[in-house]
């Protein structure tokens, strides 16, 4: 399975790893980090919104968070997905 990653574990950042999934498997998200207990729901929504806007339906996402706000999480998800697709991001 192809995997790609973006981000760092610096303060206010996160590492997003994405792995291809078979068609029809949908989106699965695993998260760990300090903010997950409080903001996990919002993080799932931000991730799913970004994947939807990129037209991704089947993917496995792993997020290691170190205090990333929505904007940063979304940017890292987009970068990881574009890397997975093999294209140059942005």
């Amino acid at each position, binding site marked *: 399975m192809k995997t790609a990653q*973006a981000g760092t574990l610096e*303060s*206010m950042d996160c590492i997003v790893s994405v792995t291809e999934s078979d068609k029809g498997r949908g989106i699965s998200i695993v998260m760990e980090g300090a903010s997950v207990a409080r903001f996990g729901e919002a993080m799932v929504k931000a991730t799913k919104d970004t994947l939807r806007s990129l037209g991704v339906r089947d993917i496995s996402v792993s997020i290691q968070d170190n205090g990333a706000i929505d904007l940063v999480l979304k940017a890292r998800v987009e*970068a990881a997905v574009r*890397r997975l697709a093999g294209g140059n991001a942005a």
Partner: protein
Amino acid sequence: MRLRRTKLYLPGNNPNMLLRGHLFNPDGVILDLEDAVAMSEKDSARILVRDVLKRGDFGSCEVTVRINAMDTEFWRKDIETVVPCGIDGIRIPKVEDPKDIAIMDEALSHIESKAKIRVGKTLIFCLLESALGIWRAYDIAKASKRVAAICPGGEDLRADLKTTRSSNSEELIGPRRMVVLAAHAAGVDALDTVFTDIIDDAGLRRETEWVKQLGYQGKSVIHPNQIPIIHDVFTPTAKEIEQAKKIVEAAAEAAARGLGAVQVDGKMVDKPVVKRAEFTLQRAGLRAGGDK
């Protein structure tokens, strides 16, 4: 005149600095896609910078992005990504050829027009980091109406001059003088390079006082702690402001009475002195003026 005493570099792949840099109150921020970003991270930094720009929370800072040099594969994608966000300007590294500025002007116009941004809004700040760039400083500054400032390089310039850093940066005296002369001849700002020793406050103050005396309007900054020192040097003292007010008021009064000569505190004051007094008030934020 836009105050450009300090322009703080913010590494383009560092969310913490990108989101908080403006809180240190520099006059401007430079979101850096060039040297602060590893080659393998150019793509993700570009996305992050784009989204931070879209958020648009930079207080009153002038917002610029240092793009990758025009001899790399990245620069077009850089401007296509950041210019539609409505930034104040781009900082181009390693400029050597006025023709490149003309090419950039055209590329920016195309992007602005497509993004429904006023054509000409995005200013250009040129980094002159080689002997050839310094030599052509005036032509580069005049290559587009967008050029707002030219800036001498530091380490890259030293390397190109086949020299090394000395304790008082003696090796950059000539280039700094050439850039400030070219900038004022072309009617753009001269902005100085960074002071890299972030714990040498006395050295930073000394260098800033020197470049201010040469005619520079500000410096690039790599650490927030450097900002108050540089602002202090570039901000007129209460005594200077008081004297400038007197001169400007006396000049206005003389003009209203149809007199050419102005007298302040028993001394005759001529036009250049009035101009300098007006500039002091601009620096103190007490008078508008300038164009870019």
